[in-house]
């Protein structure tokens, strides 16, 4: 022990013998242990006067049931239910309700204020029953045909009785009612055929009931359709969808439907602000460059510029889709031979590569190749790497490829893809 350690430590240890023993701790340093800060209470101490006021407010807001109210309750609830209600009310301190309780008004508030008479499938736990809840012998077997038909008839009758509590409509019925009745019979019969009570039979009726009881089911039931205000407001049907006039014009231009348009892969690759200097001052607007491709040999590049960011972006997307041009692909994976295109000070070199090579290119060319549906490609940008020019040069290179058939026609020579014709596509 170090000399500098105060003797107080020794005494404190000795004094604490009456307390329960702490878990054995190793001391990792010789310096004095600092006492922890004094614990603050979980609840702020309230003065007696304030407490009195609070009690009064709570009493006034949430008064105890008087006798007239208990008699009214007794008319509706059984004594056990009343006892449960009283127990629940006594469990909640009214003073807490006054100080902390507040009514929620937000749209996401849960419907808490109910009499708990029904099981809410969202909030409440599902009532479940186990094998111990089935009385008697728990044995069942496959039903034979006679038993099966009998039980189907019985179950269908039960279902129909639930559908028509006032009895089956008789006498004069119009065609619509008749049709409805026929549909109900069909539905009841098909439901009864699928019912496990029709497939199995048992001497113990409780076992049969358990087969049909959803509380015995291991499968969680489906959640009900949400019918609150928020869901209703945010729901949007396809007919109510707002039609973008620009998109409508684009669809007319392309002769496509919306589904096809949705399959186009669109990505904005460049965005920056540009300024127009006028004599009135600077006008800032945003520039966007977007690529669009169907990942199957169509590729487009579009530009858009507007003071409104969203407007400019949409402009660029629309023009990219409108500008889509076919990209010839060798074996649907790579380009035909090497390409080189120069735009401004930017030079882009694209090289075709064997299967499985991948897209080993810089990110802009990668995005373009992916949108066009190319899989094997290498590229170099030996000079300037201006983003806009790289994209434009790559697009131009990919869309203006010379095809071997064209070269053969131009030269008046026969050209053969040796890889395909002589080696069956297995040589690279």
């Amino acid at each position: 022990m170090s000399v500098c350690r105060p003797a107080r430590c020794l005494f404190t240890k000795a004094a604490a013998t009456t307390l329960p023993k702490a878990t054995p701790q190793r001391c990792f340093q010789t310096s004095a242990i600092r006492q922890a800060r004094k614990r603050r209470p979980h609840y702020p101490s309230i003065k007696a006067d304030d407490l009195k006021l609070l009690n009064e407010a709570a009493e006034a807001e949430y008064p105890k049931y008087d006798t007239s109210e208990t008699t009214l309750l007794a008319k509706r609830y059984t004594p056990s239910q009343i006892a449960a209600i009283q127990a629940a009310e006594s469990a909640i301190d009214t003073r807490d309700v006054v100080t902390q309780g507040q009514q929620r008004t937000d749209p996401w508030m849960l419907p808490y204020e109910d009499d708990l008479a029904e099981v809410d499938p969202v909030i409440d736990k599902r009532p479940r029953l186990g094998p111990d809840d089935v009385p008697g012998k728990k044995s069942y077997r496959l039903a034979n045909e006679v038993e099966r038909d009998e039980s189907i008839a019985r179950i269908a009758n039960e279902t129909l009785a639930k559908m028509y509590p006032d009895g089956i409509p008789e006498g004069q019925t119009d065609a619509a009612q008749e049709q409805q009745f026929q549909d109900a019979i069909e539905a009841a019969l098909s439901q009864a055929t699928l019912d496990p009570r029709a497939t199995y039979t048992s001497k113990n009726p409780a076992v049969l009931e358990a087969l049909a009881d959803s509380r015995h089911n291991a499968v969680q039931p489906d959640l009900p359709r949400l019918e609150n205000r928020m869901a209703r407001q945010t729901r949007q049907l396809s007919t109510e969808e707002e039609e973008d006039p620009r998109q409508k014009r684009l669809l007319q231009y392309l002769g496509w439907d919306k589904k096809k348009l949705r399959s186009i892969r669109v990505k904005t690759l460049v965005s920056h602000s540009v300024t127009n200097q006028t004599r009135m001052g600077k006008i800032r607007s945003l520039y966007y460059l977007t690529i669009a491709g169907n990942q199957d040999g169509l590729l487009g590049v579009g530009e858009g510029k507007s003071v409104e960011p969203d407007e400019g972006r949409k402009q660029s997307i629309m023009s990219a889709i409108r500008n889509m041009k076919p990209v010839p692909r060798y074996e649907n994976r790579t380009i035909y031979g090497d390409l080189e295109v120069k735009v401004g000070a930017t030079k882009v070199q694209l090289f075709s590569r064997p299967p499985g090579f991948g897209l080993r290119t810089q990110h802009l060319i990668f995005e373009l190749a992916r949108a066009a549906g190319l899989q094997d490609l290498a590229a170099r940008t030996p000079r300037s790497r201006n983003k806009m020019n790289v994209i434009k040069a790559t697009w131009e290179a990919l869309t203006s490829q010379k095809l071997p058939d064209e070269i053969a026609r131009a030269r008046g020579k026969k050209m053969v893809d040796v890889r395909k014709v002589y080696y069956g596509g297995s040589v690279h």
Partner: protein
Amino acid sequence: MSLVNLAHVCSHLQNASKARLGLTSIPVSMLHVKLALGLQQEGFLSSVTLGGSTPPTPFLLQAQPDPEELDAMAQKLKDRPWLAYPAEDITEDGVENVTEKLLGKEQVHEVRVPKNPARRRLWLGLKYWQNEPVLKNMKLVSKPTRRIWLTSDDLGKITRTRESSYVKGLTHPGECMFLTTQRGILEARECVERRVGGMALCRVWG
């Protein structure tokens, strides 16, 4: 064999195709003539004509046989196809050309070539397809200061788009390379076929 002149020819052909010229001329040398014929065989050029300082008459402006004569000849050939084979008949006067007598005289367009070799030019017809030149790029492989000789093994690799002996493969679609070999000026693929090597001259692609 001057590669400097060949370099000039290469750049001139590139420029001419950029300017969309239909006919252009280059200085005459054995190398240029053979290379031009090789290019024509590969389909890069439409015509190779030896001429003077004025361009030769284009085919459409040359004197054409009478259409009626042509029809008569076609009918004769249809009836007696064997007349197409050249035949000669030896008579007392000498050798008589039977084909000419039966089918009419062949019209051969004569181009005036200057006697002075220095004034001769080689006229090349350039080709275009769908508004694009067929021959767009023509680059030297060997340089005047650094000749490159390639074996047939090297050429095998090069024609299969791989690099060999510091010469890049023929990776552009429809690219050709011409070499001067013991068997004359040949295309790289022909060299591989015949298993001959040689000095690389230039590479051509559209």
